[in-house]
């Protein structure tokens, strides 16, 4: 209980804790589980969290700006389902893609506009637009939950692409992570996101275009969701809109939050997403190798999330500012 000990513990933030847990798990699995350390298995781990990680990148940018995007999974599944439906009913590829791209951008703009200019809390706006996107596309634009990719279409070929035997989505994830890193770290607008997330009113007072930037973040998140959806369809040769009902959305938030991106905004970055994704990937893979039933997998996942949040709450107590402004 000496002061130095406390200081050392305090320097360990949530990202550090989660990273440490991930490393411990990795080493334990490498020693205890046969085949875990096999290069192919390591590639499979990264691949299994690639789409999740891509979605989490979009979510991270929104959360850092003190928002949340609960429509991400609906946009991901429904945009691609609509695209494939258009292709299956004979619309030309270019036109179909243009429609879908326009739709995705429109939802992103709508999210951003309602949050930025109508001052509706992000959690309600995106919850509503997510339901709207799902309901409208499911009832009006497509006929079935699962929409197949037409045979020989580029989306199908995309799924078969490999470099050095590594699936394409791993490279897309890595590429996007790098781009987001550059954006957040080295561009003016990227830095502004932290200011706006940390203290929106102060950011506005010093002349940062807080509202247009808010809109941009939701558009970015919607666009990233489209990419994630295309990669999902590429791998499975179809997209099933049932994924909107799954726990994927919570898993995205989990990856971002467990990696240490505070829901109060202004904190975190791409590294946190990578750490969060690594922990989830290693955890799921190890549990599958041990053959733990799904019910227990969810329990273990939830327990680790709770643990990380509690530890974070103890060593990084809320400051006066957050207490006043609140978080989502």
């Amino acid at each position: 209980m000496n002061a130095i000990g406390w200081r050392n513990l305090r320097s360990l933030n949530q990202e550090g804790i989660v990273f440490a847990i991930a490393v411990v798990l990795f080493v334990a699995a490498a020693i205890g589980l046969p085949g875990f350390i096999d290069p192919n298995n390591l590639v499979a781990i990264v691949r299994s969290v690639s789409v999740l990680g891509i979605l989490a990148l979009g979510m991270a940018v929104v959360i850092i700006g003190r928002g949340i995007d609960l429509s991400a999974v609906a946009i991901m599944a429904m945009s691609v389902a609509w695209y494939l439906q258009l292709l299956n009913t004979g619309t030309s590829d270019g036109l179909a893609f243009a429609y879908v791209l326009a739709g995705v951008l429109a939802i992103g703009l709508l999210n951003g506009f309602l949050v930025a200019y109508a001052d509706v809390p992000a959690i309600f706006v995106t919850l509503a637009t997510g339901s709207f996107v799902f309901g409208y596309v499911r009832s009006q634009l497509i006929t079935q939950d699962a929409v197949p990719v037409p045979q020989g279409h580029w989306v199908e070929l995309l799924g078969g692409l490999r470099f050095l035997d590594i699936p394409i989505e791993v490279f897309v994830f890595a590429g996007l992570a790098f781009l987001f890193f550059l954006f957040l770290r080295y561009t003016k607008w990227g830095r502004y996101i932290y200011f706006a997330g940390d203290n929106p009113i102060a950011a506005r007072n010093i002349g940062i275009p807080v509202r247009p930037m808010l809109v941009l973040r939701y558009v970015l998140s919607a666009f990233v969701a489209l990419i994630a959806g295309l990669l999902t369809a590429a791998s499975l040769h179809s997209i099933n809109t049932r994924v909107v009902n799954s726990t994927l959305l919570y898993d995205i938030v989990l990856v971002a939050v467990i990696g240490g991106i505070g829901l109060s905004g202004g904190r975190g970055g791409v590294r946190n997403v990578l750490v969060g994704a690594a922990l989830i990937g290693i955890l799921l893979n190890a549990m599958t190798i041990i053959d733990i039933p799904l019910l227990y997998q969810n329990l273990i996942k939830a327990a680790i999330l709770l643990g990380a949040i509690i530890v974070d709450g103890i060593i990084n107590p809320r400051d006066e500012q957050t207490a006043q402004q609140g978080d989502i």
Partner: protein
Amino acid sequence: MKLIKTLMAAATALAVTAFVAPTFAADDPGPAAYAQALKGKRVMLVPLAMGFDLAQGWAHYLKKEVEAWGGTFETRDPNWVVDAGAQAITDAISSDTRPDVLIIHAPDLNSYSKLMKKAQAAGTYVLLVDNPANFPADAFVGSDWDRLGQLEAEAAIKGCGENSSKKIGLVQGDQANSSSLYQYAGIMKVLDKHPDFKVVAKPDSNWDATTSRNVTTTMLQQNSDICSIIDFWDGDATGASAAIRDAKLDGKVFLVTTGGGEKAADCDKLQDGTYGAVVMTELARQSGDMNAIIKFLLQSGQPAGTSHTFIYTLEKATTKADLKPDSCWDLKALQAEAAAK
């Protein structure tokens, strides 16, 4: 000659009587009683969701028949949400237009039991389709999932062959749905009789294709000599097949699954070798069974909840070798037919 004449006259008379007799058929009491018992009756289908092949196929065949005898057919779409299904059933029971027959596709063994009891108490016959539940419905129409699991395991054993690794992987659905639990029990029954075959892993997909792909990838990574995988539903077996394709084990791993026998979902994939065998439900026949039991119940005069009949659909494991043009039904064709009307 006289005798012949008499005989002929007698024969004519007989023939005339014989010809006259069928005119009594106009007074066959059947059609009138049938029409009286059925006309204006309401039938409602509450599946897990309307967005997948089985539900759309059932709805097509039921609607055609119910409307033909002058009844009203309705569907509700809970879209895989158990609460929404419960709400739909509650509303249906308490509405002015309470259905006379409620066909329920139960999400698990227990969720709707109380509601189904309420429906019967209100006088609605309850039919369970596809998924059994812990409730004595008036009739259950669907697969004997235990038997279905046995068929899958037999297909997998055959697909592996005697000189294989004899390693089988399972991709289960979840640990709550009766179709998943009974399917597993059936598979294990067969494998117990073949102790040389081993289940090397049995992860759950939670009926999600991406999860199925990820767990299958891991499974194949750990046991690259697996000779067969049984995925518990064709809705997520696309994931398992993607994992097999990615591991470049096409043709080496015999993928067995089960489904509603829809052309694009099952037959096309047997044809192109994605699936080795599919235990298919004959949807038209299953819908026919439902139609028959509905007609029986509505004419029986018995109070709801009296009979507890099980009508299991005949199942068969189909492989590429025994594919026929009519092995599957075609959802696109049904939708085109419905649109043409």
